[in-house]
């Protein structure tokens, strides 16, 4: 009995540093880089959301990201004041206390009035844009892609002079998920704009797992929808999948500097489940008229 107890203690002592060492942020942390985290489908208030949130907070200590992108389904089910506390404010309190802002998009489980909630930084808008350093973010409401929003997206992308253009919304344009799969309808409308105006990276949630899709028409696609829910073994690995993780919950860390995009995906167990470095895709060719105009004195 005593020997068994000793074994457990020894095992625990061996595992603690192993677990702590497991969550090593390996991103380069270069000067002047834009650093952020990505979470999706987080708002359950479950123990698992809290456990993953702890890992996110721990990651922030090593890699001080300055903001967080939320991929929607921010508050599942009831959305009374106490739900905002339980499903958002409490799990991410250390980050909120450290003045790390969250930029939310709406999911199909979200009340559109979340756009008035100050801590989601939507300023009452269902779709909006913001810029951090060399990166401009285009936040879509993919639950209701009507003409007004398409026009807005077209205008905003066309006016953008940012080096990096990143779009995000709840629904993935490309996905290997068995439950939902690619949102082909949405893709038909927004992908042409992404290509035309040179969007570099697209994030989404909705599928409760992590997936990195092979670049599609020169654009990188990530799904990060497992910060509060998990759909185990749901990825049907096929021609789209570059990497996927559906064994446990996860979040993403991203660092962008010059023409490099570094990313690391960390699970609830603190394990790195995907990481890498991507080059910024080349800008789309400018139409000839634009070149002529630019050349005119």
């Amino acid at each position: 009995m005593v020997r068994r107890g000793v074994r457990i203690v020894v095992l625990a002592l061996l595992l603690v540093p192993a677990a702590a060492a497991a969550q090593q942020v390996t991103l380069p942390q270069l000067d002047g880089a834009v650093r952020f985290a990505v979470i999706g489908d987080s708002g359950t208030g479950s123990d698992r959301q809290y456990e993953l949130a702890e890992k996110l907070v721990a990651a922030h200590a090593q890699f001080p990201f300055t903001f967080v992108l939320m991929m929607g389904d921010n508050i599942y089910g009831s959305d009374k004041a106490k739900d905002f506390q339980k499903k958002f404010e409490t799990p991410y309190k250390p980050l909120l206390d450290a003045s790390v802002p969250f930029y939310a998009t709406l999911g199909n489980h979200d009340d559109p009035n979340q756009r008035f909630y100050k801590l989601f930084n939507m300023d009452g808008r269902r779709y909006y844009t913001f810029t951090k350093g060399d990166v401009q973010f285009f936040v879509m409401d993919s639950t209701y892609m009507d003409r007004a929003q398409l026009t807005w997206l077209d205008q905003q992308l066309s006016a953008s002079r940012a080096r990096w253009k990143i779009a995000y919304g709840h629904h993935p344009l490309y996905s290997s998920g068995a439950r939902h799969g690619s949102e082909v309808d949405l893709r038909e409308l927004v992908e042409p704009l992404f290509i035309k105006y040179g969007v570099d990276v697209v994030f989404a949630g909705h599928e409760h797992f992590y997936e990195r899709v092979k670049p599609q028409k020169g654009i990188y696609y990530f799904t990060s929808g497992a910060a509060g829910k998990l759909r185990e073994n749901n990825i049907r690995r096929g021609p789209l999948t570059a990497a996927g993780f559906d064994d446990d919950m996860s979040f993403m860390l991203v660092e962008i500097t010059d023409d490099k995009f570094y990313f690391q995906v960390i699970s609830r167990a603190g394990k790195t489940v995907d990481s890498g470095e991507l080059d910024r895709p080349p800008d789309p060719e400018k139409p000839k008229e634009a070149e002529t105009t630019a050349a005119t004195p």
Partner: protein
Amino acid sequence: MVHGATDGALPMLRHNGALDSKLMISMHRLIVAAILIGALGAGRLPAQQPVNPQAAALKEFADRTKAYVDLKTKMKSALPALGADATPAEISKHEHQLAQAIRRARSNARQGDVFTPPVVPQFRTVIRGDLRSRDIRDALAAMQEVPYTVTLRVNDTWPSDFPLATIPPRLLNNLYPLPDGLEYRFLDRHLVLLDTESHLIVDFVRDVVPSIVRRRR
């Protein structure tokens, strides 16, 4: 949905002698009438112009959605405005108060007040046409997250635990555009006009979605 399109149902003219001579007399009368109208008031139009019934129904729909939004704006102006620092409790209270005020103002509202009977067939045609244009897997996927429900009443609140299932964007872009604050949503097989600020069901059309794409759980 085609806005203001003609329905192409023009009366046919038969080509025979009797009709031709009648037509000549009618045209002569028309020319005389046009000259008289022109003399009485340049540019004045006749009181009764033929109107495409489909376009008229859509115009009526647009007027009614606008009237709803105007009413909501009026109700909102009587409530304390939501500040930039609004807490979830304040947002929820505002939503509730707005819903109550609109319910009181529309206490006599009934199904069909906005989706009037003449416009309903156009919505059915567009929605069914869209779903028919998809293969069955795609159509089922489009409706996959639409919640099931038993009761549906005007002025009820959208249940907070029901997801706001996405209207397939291609279909959405073929439906008549709505003013800000109103949205189309599906609930079971029904098309709902939803006020996104008060969460009220403004109106609905039953059974627009064919039963074949709504698998019961």
